[in-house]
């Protein structure tokens, strides 16, 4: 079975919610929709305090090249425009809407039937994806319409769909593949048309045999689409690792996937693309896995963007008394929240309630020169030295040692027997070297 060759680790799966179907929950009383929910510049607000909005209405416009539109996920009145604490730990501007009923924009098709015929042209598809605020739902939230506009000097030949979900605990993508398989396959076909490719490969890890079988059946009528089972390994969901696993090609250092002819999109993004193009529905909700060993009702909820994490935890049975950390995302790359009043945003794939015992870091000791971090790094880097360079302000050496190639997966820190905070220092080094490089280019 295929997988990527260099590095990788095997954290325990903890897929507690793999068999829990996607559940609708009642609408909350209030939502807080941040204006910055994608990579790139924050979007510009186009509505005012006091305005009545409908579900699916555009409330903020992306202005720069890399930015995305933001839509209201509920109907009601905008009561405040203020700052809320998001997963970054800092306060960012957001629109607070008091929910009144659930009135949708008339142009959105809410019927449940799956529309498989693709009526729009390639350019219309990309324009629709842009106007409906679709961003990468794998976690990076890169605006999808920008990813689909491959630069003229590169050619896209293969669309790879990321159904890997390698993070422990998270099962949102798994349930989407099982319960909305037809929509997903149609979304894949739409993406193929937008890119102008006739081949697509859906990568799924072999801990999800039901999803593999289901999508193989649904894609049987479309010869260009193949399902590729992959041997379980973290971080197979990283796009460079996925490309290597599926095609055997390696993305050169500093280059993009398009340089190998591949474009990678998440399964959730494929579903969002289907809804935008076939049902005219902007990105206003997503599946969020709320999980943790001490939760009474761990589930996969269909959540409106802007719902508070607090509300979701209550829907899952309430905050367990032994909770140490509330993590947005998975235990490997997720962010520990500083307050459960934070809203769910487009990039929130899961909420993990980790027990106090598991949350504490181990005591940091000296490096024992075991080189395990080097053997697990999926990008072939040397985390022990990168972390050392960053800690001792040797940024020139860090740049030469390819620190900018680090994808921040955390495999090094996960493996280190001395409990050293390798990823923390490498991230610090990356931020500083990134600034140095940007200032260099400016001159």
């Amino acid at each position, binding site marked *: 079975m295929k997988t990527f060759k260099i590095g990788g680790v095997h954290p325990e799966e903890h897929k507690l919610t793999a068999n829990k179907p996607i559940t609708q929950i009642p609408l909350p009383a209030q939502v807080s929709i941040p204006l910055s929910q994608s990579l790139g510049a924050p979007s510009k607000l186009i509505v005012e305090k006091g305005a009545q909005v409908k579900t699916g209405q555009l409330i903020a416009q992306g202005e720069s090249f890399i930015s995305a539109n933001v839509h209201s996920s509920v109907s009601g009145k905008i009561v405040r425009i203020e700052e809320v604490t998001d997963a970054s*730990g800092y306060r960012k501007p957001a629109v607070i809407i008091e929910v009144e009923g659930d009135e949708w924009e008339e142009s959105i098709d809410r019927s449940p039937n799956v529309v498989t015929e693709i009526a729009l042209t390639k350019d219309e598809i990309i324009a629709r994806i842009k106007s409906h605020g679709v961003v990468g739902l794998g976690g990076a939230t890169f605006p999808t319409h920008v990813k689909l506009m491959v630069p003229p000097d590169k050619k896209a030949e293969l669309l790879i769909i990321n159904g890997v979900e390698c993070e422990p605990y998270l099962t949102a993508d798994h349930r989407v593949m099982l319960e909305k398989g037809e929509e997903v396959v149609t979304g894949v076909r739409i993406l193929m048309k937008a890119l102008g490719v006739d081949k697509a490969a859906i990568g799924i890890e072999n801990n999800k045999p039901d999803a593999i079988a289901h999508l193989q059946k649904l894609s049987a009528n479309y010869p260009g689409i193949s399902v590729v089972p992959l041997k379980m390994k973290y971080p197979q969901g990283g796009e460079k690792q996925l490309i290597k696993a599926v095609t055997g090609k390696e993305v050169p250092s500093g280059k993009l996937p398009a340089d190998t002819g591949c474009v990678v999109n998440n399964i959730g993004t494929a579903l969002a693309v289907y809804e935008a193009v076939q049902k005219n529905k902007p990105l206003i909700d997503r599946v969020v896995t709320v999980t943790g060993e001490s939760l009474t009702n761990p589930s996969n909820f269909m959540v409106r963007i802007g719902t508070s994490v607090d509300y979701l935890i209550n829907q899952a049975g309430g905050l367990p008394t032994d909770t140490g950390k509330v993590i947005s995302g998975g235990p490997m790359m997720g962010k520990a929240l500083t307050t459960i009043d934070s809203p769910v945003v487009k990039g929130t794939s899961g909420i993990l309630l980790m027990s106090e015992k598991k949350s504490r870091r181990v005591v940091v000791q000296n490096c024992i020169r075991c080189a395990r971090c080097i053997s697990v790094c999926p990008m072939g880097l040397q985390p022990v030295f990168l972390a050392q360079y960053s800690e001792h302000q040797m940024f020139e050496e860090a740049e030469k040692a390819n620190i900018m190639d680090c994808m921040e997966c955390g495999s090094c820190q996960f493996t280190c027997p001395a409990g050293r*905070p390798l990823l923390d220092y490498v991230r610090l080094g990356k931020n500083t070297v990134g600034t140095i490089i940007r200032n260099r280019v400016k001159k």
Partner: protein
Amino acid sequence: MNTTILYAILTLSLLGVFSAVILYFIAQKFKVIEDPRVDIITGLLPGANCGGCGYAGCHALAETIVKTEDISNHKCPVGGNDTMKQIAKALGLEAKETEPQIAVVRCNGSRVNAPSKILYNGAASCTIAHSLSAGETGCPYGCLGEGDCVKVCLFDAIYMDHEAALPRVIEDKCVACGACVTACPRSIIQLRNKGVKGRRVYVSCINKEKRGTARKNCNVPCIGCGKCVKECPFDAITLQDNLAYIDFNKCKLCRKCVTVCPTGAILEVNFPPRKEKSDSTETIASAETV
């Protein structure tokens, strides 16, 4: 004598002479001609190589001074005015007298004033903690207490008061080299004049949030009310972005602003204790000095 030994001695001696000649010519060809004054000036400098003057070590500063024949823009914070006077005398130049300065930590969000709402359990670095969240207190401008400033000090002049979770500057060790100023990711530490008799008055806060938000996380923030600006008889205080700033060049140490500040954000250092009736809302507003 045995001819083998004789030949061995001769060969080695010739090799030695040959190497010496080569080395002599190479030494002459690649000789670095340096103004002898550079070495004299380097000798006058303290030799700490701290970088506080802005140059890569004492020798580099000496080189620049001798090359430009000008010391008006240079200052050795470790040697201070005495060293600059000596250098000026050695080169036949005029030395400028400058005020001695000291690092001042403009945050008083101790564990009592700004209690922790969450626990940061990550890598012990302020820069890393700063990139992850506003911090344990919730104030996005406040001190994080992990000690990046302490790590960079070459003069042992700053230490972490772990009970308060704030750094404390040791007055007679700090040479105002500026290393801690650069190290702090939130620019909480500033260089200010040591002041007459070591006395200074400063706003111990850099929070730019509106008054309500600032008070949520701390008891002694600057809320930008502007009372100090109105009170100051010397126009030394300016208000910008909900934050007051005392210009230490204009401040005459009258301490009227300290009395009038409603939150106790303005601190006075090294003054004799005041004879005043005790205030029931006494906050922990006086900075500890060592």
